[in-house]
């Protein structure tokens, strides 16, 4: 139980400030990134009209998420943001599933990962909004319905980043803590595989999907 909440950190002094690196999280994130790269390589290696097993999975991801993006945005923007959405989902899904392998942890268990993904979505959504509507109309949207609603609209926008990232973080962190505590209480007999299936595979996949959907919606709200 002692390892709960312990993180291996590398602290580097930098002009009077301390820069902190969570080494384990960085390592796990790289494992996820490399696995996705390998998957992408395998899926596109021998492309054919009759697809191989890996290509089928790849096509499934791409077609599903392009369709989803095109539904929420329009055809043209869907093409533009489709690859991003697809990659985001694959990254989050694999991150959430990584914890099932012994000695590996979900990178999403550290708040920094979901928060950076949420910030990325926030910046992209606002960039897309300015591109689509123009700067004036974008600023004007904050003063609706009445001008003094501006501070609340601003807080509402910032709260979106908080809510999207805490949702993923809370679920994954909660799941992994439950698995750890129940494994400890039952001496790892019988229950942990079922808990891993529920919290790891099921909740992890749902939350990765929810995060991706919300990112699409945030972009769509800004664009329209």
């Amino acid at each position, binding site marked *: 139980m002692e390892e709960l909440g312990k993180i291996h950190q590398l602290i580097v002094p930098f002009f009077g400030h301390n820069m902190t690196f969570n080494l384990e999280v960085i390592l796990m994130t790289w494992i996820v990134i490399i696995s996705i790269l390998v998957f992408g390589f395998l899926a596109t290696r021998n492309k054919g009209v009759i697809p191989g097993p890996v290509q089928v999975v790849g096509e499934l991801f791409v077609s599903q998420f392009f369709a989803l993006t095109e*539904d929420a945005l329009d055809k043209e923007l869907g093409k533009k943001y489709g690859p991003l959405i697809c990659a985001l989902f694959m990254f989050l899904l694999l991150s959430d599933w990584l914890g099932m392998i012994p000695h590996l942890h979900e990178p999403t268990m550290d708040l920094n990962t979901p928060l950076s993904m949420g910030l990325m979505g926030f910046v992209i959504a606002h960039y897309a909004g300015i591109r689509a509507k123009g700067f004036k109309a974008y600023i004007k949207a904050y003063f609706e319905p009445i001008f003094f609603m501006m501070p609340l609209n601003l807080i509402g926008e910032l709260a979106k980043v*908080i809510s999207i990232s805490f*949702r993923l973080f*809370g*679920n994954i962190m*909660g*799941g992994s803590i439950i698995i750890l*505590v*129940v494994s400890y209480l039952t001496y790892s007999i019988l229950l942990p595989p079922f808990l891993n299936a529920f919290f790891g595979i099921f909740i992890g996949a749902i939350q990765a999907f*929810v995060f991706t959907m919300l990112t699409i919606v945030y972009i769509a709200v800004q664009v329209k």
Partner: protein
Amino acid sequence: MTDDIQVWVKVAAFIGGGMAMGFGALGAAIGEGYTAAKANEAIARNPQISGDLFKTMLIGQAIAESASIFALVIAMILLFTDFAAESYVMVSVLLAAGLSMGLGAIGSGVGSGFPAGEACTGIARQPAMNGRLTTNMLIGSAVCQTPAIFALVTSFILLFTNFSDRPVSPTWAAILGAGFASGFGAIGSGLGGGLVAQASCEGIARQPLSATPVTNVMLLGQAVTQTTAIYGLLISFILMFKGFAPSQSIAESMALLGAGLCMGIGAIGPGIGEGFTAQSAVKWISRNQSATASLTRSMLVGQAVAESTGIYALVISLVLIFVI
């Protein structure tokens, strides 16, 4: 003096464990009863598939019970662990851990009973959609558990973080406030998320062709409904991890306790209200699929407006913590 602390820590562990399981038993039981009632109704309507209905009822009840099982785990830890009694902060830590998990289990327990009940009704109405309805129910009730999981995270962090080097006043109030914020904050969102999932099960049974947009919009609506529970989690994180300077004045302690209460209770209403919004949006998407895009948009705008009172609560708690 040390013996005194020891006694009080034991007292707090017992009261905390009692409250965790007592409140925790409340919600799930109501949800499960609702599921069973709906299942009975469904069996009366379509007795030929009573086996399938019975199975769906049991699966739905098992998911609805998970919030209560989280509370059981916390109660067991509170009762059977020897907590280090170094400071009076531990007393409020144990109380807060129990309160957070107990209150947090109410909403999710009641909420995840709704989709399970509606899935039984739907299977009786449309037996061919059994598989899809069961999957949708599982997804819906699993997302309903999210607020309870947030409360659980708060309880675990409280139990396994060492707060003994913090000044007793005002830390005790901050910790208790953290428990209230995430505990009360989870009630509304759990209930609201259940309403959304209920509407989606009904919609799929009514119009099986609309299953995909209904499930997608359900997830979206539930996710937005949980926003205020996440504000509660955020406030409780700030209250737990911000080191407060020692002060003898009771006023500062009460400001922190008030911040937790404000966010927690303030999150109940928006959670339920946003649930209503998403419920009817999901329900009508199944009846009029061509309006999916505009219904989704009006749902999101409506939820954003319903959430504004939650944002007021967030602003006031942040003011109470950082300004006063």
